[in-house]
C-alpha cells in the first residue's frame, strides 16, 4: 500500500536517473560499447539459428498445412478426423508446453532429440495447424464455379486444385500467412528455453554475465523489430504482385 502510494514519486526519481544516464558520458560510453560487443553474438545467433529455424519451419509447416487442409476437405472420414484432432491439440495447448514435451519429455520414451531438431519439429507442427485453418478457409472461399470451370475443360480434381483453386487460394491466404510468418519469427525466441542458441538466448547469456538486462533485452527486441519490419515490407510487395489481376 505504502509503496503504491509513493510510486508516482518513485517513477519520477527513476526517470531522473534515466536522464542521468544520458548526461553521464562515461556510463553512456559503457552502454554503447556493451551494445556493440554483444551485437555480434546476437546477430550470429539470429543468422545461425533464428532465421534458419523460421525459414525451415515455415516451409515444413506450410507443406503440413496444405496436406492438413486437404485432409479436412477430403471426403475420406478418417483423414478428416486425423486432421481435426491434430489441429485441435496444437491449437489447444501452449507452444511452450509442446516444445517442452518434445525436448524434455520424449527422452523418457528413449527419444532424445537435439535442441534444434526439437525446435524444428515443435514449430513446424504449430505452423502446420494454424496455417491449415487459413488455407482451408482460403480454399473454401474460392467459388464452386471455378472448380466447375476447371472440370468442364476436362481437368481432374488434382489438376483443378493445382492450376485453378490453389493459386487463387494462395492469393487470399498471403496476408494471414505473412502474419503467421512474422509471429513465427518472434516465437522462435521460445526456443531459448529448450537450449537453442538463437538470438534471444544469446542475449540472456550475455546479460547473465554483465547484469545489463534492460540494455540487452531492448537490443534483442530492436533486432526482432527490424527483422519484422523488413518482412512487412516484403509482405507488401508480394501482395501487390498477387493483386495484379484484381480490379483496383
Amino acid at each position, binding site marked *: 500500500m505504502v509503496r503504491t502510494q509513493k510510486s508516482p514519486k518513485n517513477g519520477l526519481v527513476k526517470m531522473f536517473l534515466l536522464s542521468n544516464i544520458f548526461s553521464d558520458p562515461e556510463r553512456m560510453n559503457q552502454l554503447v560499447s556493451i551494445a556493440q560487443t554483444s551485437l555480434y553474438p546476437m546477430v550470429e545467433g539470429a543468422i545461425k539459428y533464428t532465421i534458419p529455424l523460421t525459414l525451415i519451419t515455415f516451409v515444413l509447416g506450410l507443406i503440413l498445412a496444405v496436406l492438413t487442409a486437404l485432409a479436412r476437405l477430403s471426403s475420406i472420414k478418417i483423414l478428416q478426423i486425423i486432421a481435426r484432432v491434430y489441429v485441435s491439440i496444437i491449437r489447444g495447448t501452449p507452444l511452450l508446453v509442446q516444445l517442452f514435451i518434445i525436448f524434455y519429455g520424449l527422452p523418457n520414451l528413449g527419444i532424445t532429440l537435439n535442441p534444434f531438431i526439437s525446435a524444428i519439429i515443435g514449430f513446424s507442427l504449430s505452423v502446420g495447424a494454424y496455417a491449415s485453418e487459413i488455407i482451408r478457409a482460403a480454399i473454401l472461399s474460392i467459388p464452386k464455379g471455378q472448380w466447375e*470451370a476447371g*472440370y*468442364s*475443360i476436362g481437368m481432374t480434381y488434382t489438376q483443378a486444385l493445382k*492450376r*485453378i483453386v490453389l493459386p*487463387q487460394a494462395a492469393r487470399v491466404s498471403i496476408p494471414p500467412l505473412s502474419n503467421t510468418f512474422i509471429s513465427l519469427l518472434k516465437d522462435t525466441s521460445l526456443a531459448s528455453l529448450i537450449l537453442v542458441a538463437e538470438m534471444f538466448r544469446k542475449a540472456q547469456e550475455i546479460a547473465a554475465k554483465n547484469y545489463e538486462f534492460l540494455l540487452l533485452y531492448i537490443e534483442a527486441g530492436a533486432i526482432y523489430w527490424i527483422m519484422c519490419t523488413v518482412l512487412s515490407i516484403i509482405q507488401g510487395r508480394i501482395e501487390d504482385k498477387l493483386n495484379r489481376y484484381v480490379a483496383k
Partner: protein
Amino acid sequence: MINIKNLHKSFGDLEVLKGIDLEVEQGKVIVLIGPSGSGKTTFLRCLNLLEVPTDGTIEIDQKLMEFKKTVSKRSITSFRSLTGMVFQNYNLFPHKTAVENVMEGPIIVKNIPKQKAKETAKALLTKVGLGDKVDFYPFQLSGGQQQRVGIARALAMEPKVMLFDEPTSALDPELVGDVLQVMKDLAKEERMTMVVVTHEMRFARDVADEVIFMDEGKIMERGTPEQIFTNPKEERTRRFLNMIQ
C-alpha cells in the same frame, strides 16, 4: 449426335429431372426454355456430368453412359470432354489472362505444347472478336467480352457439342448482341451441335432448329421455333410465353 433416354436426376428426395428423352442430330441447335426451377440448368449440367444423373442413359458421338450403376471418375472425365460448357456467370479464371484461360485446357489436359496452344488460343480469341484483348485479365474485360472468352475456352477443347446456360442473361442489354453473334456464327458456319438455354426469342427464331419447353423436370412440348412461338399446343407453354414476352 446426342441420344438421351429416360434421364432422371434427384437431389436427395427432390426429383428435378423426371425422365427426359431427347435426340439431337449433328449440327442442330436446340433452344431450351422453361420457367425458373424447371430443371434446365440441371439438365445441361447432367450432359456435362457436372451432375451425375441418377438414372437413364446419355449417348454422345456414339459413346454411351449408363447411370443405373455408379460411374467411375475416369469415365466421367473422358465423357465430359465430348461437351463444352458455357456458364451463365462466365467462370473465367481470374488469375489468368484471356489467352491463358483459353490455353489452359489444351496445355494441362491435352498436353499440347505451350507455343502451339497459344497460337490456337489466339486464333480462337480472334474468331470471337477479341484478337486485341488476348493479354487482358478478366477484370479488364466487359461481361460480353468475358463471355466470349468463355466460349473460346470451351471451343479450345474441341468438343462435339456446346452447352450454353443462359449465356447472356447476366449481361447488360447492349452487350448481348456480340455474344449471340458469336453463337450464331458457331451454329451457321461451323455447324456446331448446340444445346442452349436462353430466353432470347430472336436468337431462337433465327438459329434454333428446335425449341423445347421444359416444365417441372419434363419436356412438355417441342417443335420448330415457329410452331412453339406462334402456335403452342400446350396451355402451359402458352402461359409461359405470355409471361416472358
